[in-house]
C-alpha cells in the first residue's frame, strides 16, 4: 500500500510545522502556486508505521549475509553513524567560517593523510561523491595533465573488457574514445592486446586490480611500463582495494591516479544506493590538477585550499565538500581499525573468499578461474547447469533469497556466462559461510529434483518474481491522484 493511499484531505501533523500562519508575505501573485501539491496527508504515527514496515521488506547487512560481488558489503559500525551525527556536526553550515569548524576540518585533514599513506599517493582530495564521480574526476585530471603539456592528441582511454561499466561511460563523459582490450584465459588483461593498443593517442589505461574477475593482475608492473612508455597515465579503479589494503599500494604499482570507494573498503553505509564517497589520490605530477576543496594544515590551524592555491585545479565538482558526513564515518572507521586493523581487512577478506571458493568447489560448483587464487571475491559459473537443466544464474540467485541470503552479483562480469560473483567480506564468520554453502548444496539438489520450483523462485519474499519487461515497456514512474 502506497503512502498516498493512507492519505486523507485535511489530515495534518500539527507538531511538525509552524503553528501560526506567517505574518508577512510579499510574493507577487503571478508567482504563487495554484496547483495542489500531492504530498501525502498522513498522521505522524501512520508515517512511522508505513516506513518502518517498508524497511522490514529490505534485505540488508544488518539482517542478512550479502555476498554481493564487487560491492564489499561489510559491517557498518554503529558508532560511525552515531558519532558522525553528533548535533554540532549536523548543525554546521557548510559556509560557516573555518574557525568554527576546526574540529570537523581536523578529521578531514587526518583522513586525507591516512588515505595518502595506505595508497601510496602524493595527494588526496575528498570531494568525489561516488565511485563514478571519482572516476570522472580522475580522468579529468588525466586530460588536464596532457593538455597542460600542450598534448591535445591523446583522445583514447584503454579499458579492459572485464571492467565495470562506469569505466567506459566515464571516459566518454570526459570526451575520450574508449579502446577495449581483451582478457586472457587466466583472467589477466591480454598483455599483447595492450601493447597493440597503446600509442600516441593513449591518454591512459583504467584498471581495476584485483580485477572484477576476482584475480590479481600479475602483470601490472609490465602494464604500467607499457602505458607510461607510450605517454599515457594509469588510472586505478579502487573498487577492489579491500582485497589488497595494507598489502599493495596503488602508488607502488605505478598508478598515477586512483579513486577509493569509502562505501566499500572503508565501510560507510550503502544506504540502499548511496550516498557513496570516493576520494581521489594522485601521484606527484598530478597534484596541481586536483579538485578543490582540500583541507590544508597551517601550523595548528586547518583551512580550505581554494582556487587561489591551486590555479590549475580541474575545479569544483560538488557544491560544498562532497559527502561530508560520509567522510566523517570513514574517518571514524579508520581510527577504530588503526594500523593493525587496516592490514587485517585484506587478509581476512581474502581468507573468507578463498575458503568459500574451496568449499563451493567441493560442493560441486564450477569455479570460473579454478587455477587462480581468489582475491576477496571469485566467480562461479552455472553454464553447464543451465545447459543441462535450464536453470540460470538468476534462478539460483532468486532461490538464495528464499534461503535468507542476498544473492551474489549475477551476469557480471559480462565475459563469464551464467556467472555469480561472490564476495563474502572479512566481517562474516566461518559459521555464516558454512551455512551459505549448505544452502547452495540444497539448491544444487533442488535443481536436480525440482528445477521448475527453482525457476519459479523466489517463493518466500514479499513479492514473487517481478516483471521487468512490463516495467520498461509501460513505464509507471509516479503515482498520480485518481490514476
Amino acid at each position, binding site marked *: 500500500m502506497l503512502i498516498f493511499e493512507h492519505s486523507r484531505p485535511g489530515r495534518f501533523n500539527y507538531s511538525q510545522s*509552524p503553528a501560526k500562519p*506567517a505574518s508577512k508575505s510579499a510574493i507577487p501573485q503571478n508567482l504563487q502556486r495554484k496547483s495542489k501539491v500531492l*504530498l501525502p496527508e498522513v498522521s505522524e504515527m501512520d508515517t512511522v508505521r508505513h516506513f518502518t514496515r517498508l524497511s522490514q521488506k529490505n534485505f540488508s547487512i544488518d539482517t542478512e549475509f550479502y555476498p554481493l560481488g564487487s560491492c564489499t558489503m561489510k559491517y557498518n559500525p554503529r558508532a560511525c553513524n552515531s558519532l558522525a551525527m553528533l548535533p554540532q556536526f549536523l548543525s554546521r553550515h557548510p559556509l560557516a567560517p573555518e574557525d568554527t569548524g576546526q574540529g570537523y576540518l581536523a578529521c578531514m585533514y587526518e583522513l586525507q593523510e591516512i588515505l595518502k599513506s595506505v595508497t601510496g599517493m602524493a595527494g588526496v582530495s575528498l570531494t568525489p561523491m561516488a565511485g563514478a564521480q571519482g572516476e570522472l574526476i580522475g580522468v579529468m585530471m588525466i586530460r588536464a595533465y596532457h593538455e597542460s603539456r600542450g598534448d591535445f592528441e591523446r583522445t583514447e582511454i584503454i579499458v579492459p573488457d572485464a571492467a565495470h561499466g562506469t569505466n567506459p*561511460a566515464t571516459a566518454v563523459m570526459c570526451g575520450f574514445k574508449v579502446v577495449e582490450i581483451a582478457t586472457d584465459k587466466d583472467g589477466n588483461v591480454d598483455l599483447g592486446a595492450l601493447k597493440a593498443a597503446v600509442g600516441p593517442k593513449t591518454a591512459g589505461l583504467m584498471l581495476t586490480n584485483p580485477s572484477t574477475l576476482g584475480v590479481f593482475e600479475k602483470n601490472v608492473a609490465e602494464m604500467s611500463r607499457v602505458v607510461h612508455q607510450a605517454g599515457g597515465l594509469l588510472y586505478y579503479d579502487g573498487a577492489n582495494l579491500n582485497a589488497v589494503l595494507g598489502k599493495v599500494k596503488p602508488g607502488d604499482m605505478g598508478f598515477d591516479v586512483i579513486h577509493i570507494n569509502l562505501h566499500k573498503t572503508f565501510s560507510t553505509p550503502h544506504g540502499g544506493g548511496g550516498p557513496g564517497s570516493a576520494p581521489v589520490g594522485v601521484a606527484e605530477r598530478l597534484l596541481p590538477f586536483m579538485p578543490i576543496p582540500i583541507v590544508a594544515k597551517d601550523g595548528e590551524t586547518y583551512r580550505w585550499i581554494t582556487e587561489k592555491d591551486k590555479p590549475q585545479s580541474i575545479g569544483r565538482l*560538488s557544491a560544498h565538500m562532497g559527502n561530508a558526513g560520509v567522510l566523517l564515518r570513514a574517518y571514524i572507521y579508520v581510527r577504530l581499525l588503526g594500523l593493525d586493523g587496516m592490514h587485517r581487512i585484506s587478509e581476512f577478506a581474502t581468507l573468507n573468499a578463498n575458503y568459500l571458493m574451496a568449499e563451493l568447489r567441493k560442493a560441486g560448483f564450477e569455479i570460473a578461474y579454478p587455477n587462480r587464487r581468489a582475491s576477496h571475491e571469485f566467480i562461479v559459473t552455472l553454464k553447464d547447469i543451465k545447459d543441462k537443466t535450464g536453470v540460470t544464474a538468476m534462478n539460483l540467485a532468486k532461490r538464495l533469497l528464499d534461503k535468507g541470503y542476498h544473492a551474489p552479483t549475477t551476469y557480471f562480469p559480462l565475459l563469464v556466462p551464467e556467472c555469480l560473483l561472490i564476495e563474502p567480506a572479512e566481517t562474516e564468520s566461518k559459521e555464516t559461510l558454512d551455512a551459505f554453502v549448505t544452502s547452495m548444496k540444497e539448491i544444487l539438489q533442488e535443481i536436480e529434483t525440482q528445477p521448475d520450483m527453482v525457476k519459479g523462485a523466489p517463493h518466500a519474499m514479499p513479492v514473487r518474481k517481478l516483471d521487468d519487461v512490463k516495467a520498461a515497456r509501460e513505464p509507471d514512474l509516479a503515482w498520480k491522484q485518481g490514476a
Partner: protein
Amino acid sequence: MPFIPHTKEDVAEMLASIGAKTIEELFDEIPKELISDELTGVPPGLSEMEITRLMMARATQDGFYQNFIGAGAYEHHIPAAVWQITTRGEFYSSYTPYQAEASQGTLQLLYEYQSMMASLTGMDVSNASMYDGATALAEAALMAVRSHKSSRRILIPQTVHPVYRQVVRAIVSNQKIEVVELPYCTECGQILPESLANSNHEDFAALVIPQPNFFGVLEQVDALTDWAHSKNAFAIGVVNPTTLAVLTPPGEWGSKGADIAVGEGQPLGIPLSSGGPYFGFMACKNELVRQMPGRIIGRTTDLDDKEGFVLTLQAREQHIRRSKATSNICTNQGLMVTAATIFMSLVGAEGLRRVAAQSHANTLELIEQLVKIKGVERTFSGPVFHEAPLTLSQPVADVLNKLKQKGILGGYNLQGQYPELGNTLLVCATETKTESDLRNYATAMQQVLG
C-alpha cells in the same frame, strides 16, 4: 582485530580446507616486489570509547551558532522520526536494490519519492536522485544538449549559484559544451526578460532559470521560459524544493512549462552537516525520460499479478550500455532520499507551505529590522523569498567577524563572488528563527555598525 570474527580455530580450519599454510600464502600471486612494507602514517586503533571521546571533543570544539547563512544550504526543522527511521539497519546497510524481490522497502520508497518530486516540481517524472544540486544541474545541461542535438551551448544567468556554475563548467566542458553566462540587472537583482529579448542569443540548447535565484530574488520565470522555448531551446529550472509549496512549479512556468527541473534536495529533511551528504533532484517531462541519467524506479507486477517495484529503463545506464550510456552515474543518494521521503510524508503539503511561508516572513521581518539600522540597505528592488542581499557601510568580512564573537553567523559574504556589488551580505532567516532571534540579530548588527 575489530570487526573480524575469526577465532584461531576458524583460521586453521579454513586454511586447511583451502590447502594453504598461512594467510600470507593466499597473496602468493602478487609479485613480491609489490608487497608493501609496513604502513606508516596510520595511528594505532582506538576503542569505541576512545573514538567517542575524541569525536565529542571535536564536535564540542565546533560548537553551536545562531545561523543566518543560506546560500544554497538551509537550516530547517527536521522531525525526529525522519532520521530514527532512516538509520534503521534495513535502510542504512542495504545496497542498491538490484534484487528487487528482496528490496521492496527501498524500491517502494523511491517510487513514492519520485511521485512526490514530480508533483512538487509539476513535472511528469523524477529520477531517484543525483549527487547534489550542482551536479544535477550539470547533468541537466548534458541531457538538454543530448536531446537538442543541434546546439552545444548552454545559457546560465549569473544569478545561478556561483559554485553550481563552476561545477557545470567543469563537467560539461569535457564534452566541448559551451557555457555562456548572462548578466543580471544590478538594480533589481534579476535576469530581465526584456534584455534577453534584445540580445543576440540564438543558437543554444537550454536556458537555466533559477527560482529563487542565488540572491534570494524571485525571477520572472514565465517570460524566461517562454523566451527559451521561442528559441527552440529547453528551459531548465533550478529550484529550491521548500519554496515550491508556495511558488509556481517549473512544470507550470510560462505557456508550456519548463522541460527539466533540478535542485538541491537538502532543505527536505537533510541536516546542514558541513555540506553533505545532500542529494540533487531531477524531474522532467515524459518526452525526455529516456535521456534522464540516474536510477529510475517503476511499478510493475509479479507472477501473481501483485504490485511490486523494480529498477527500470536500465537501458540508459552504464552497467548495461557501458560507453553508450546517458551518464556514468550508478549510485544515487539513496539514504538521503529515504530521509527526504519520510520528511515530506510527515510535513505534508500544508506543513511544507507553512515552513516556506514562515521562512519568507522571517526574512522579511529581519530585513525590515536591519534596514532601519544606519549603514544597512536593501541591495536590490526585486521581491525576495527567504534570503536577501544587504549592502553595508563597512566591509562584510569585518562585520561577520564581529557578529561571530556574539555567537551569530550573520550570513554569506557576496563580495568574493560578486565584487561588483561592493559590501554586500546575503542573509537568510528560516522558520527556525524566533522573533527574539531576529531582534537579537538586529541588535547585534546595530552594535557592530554603531
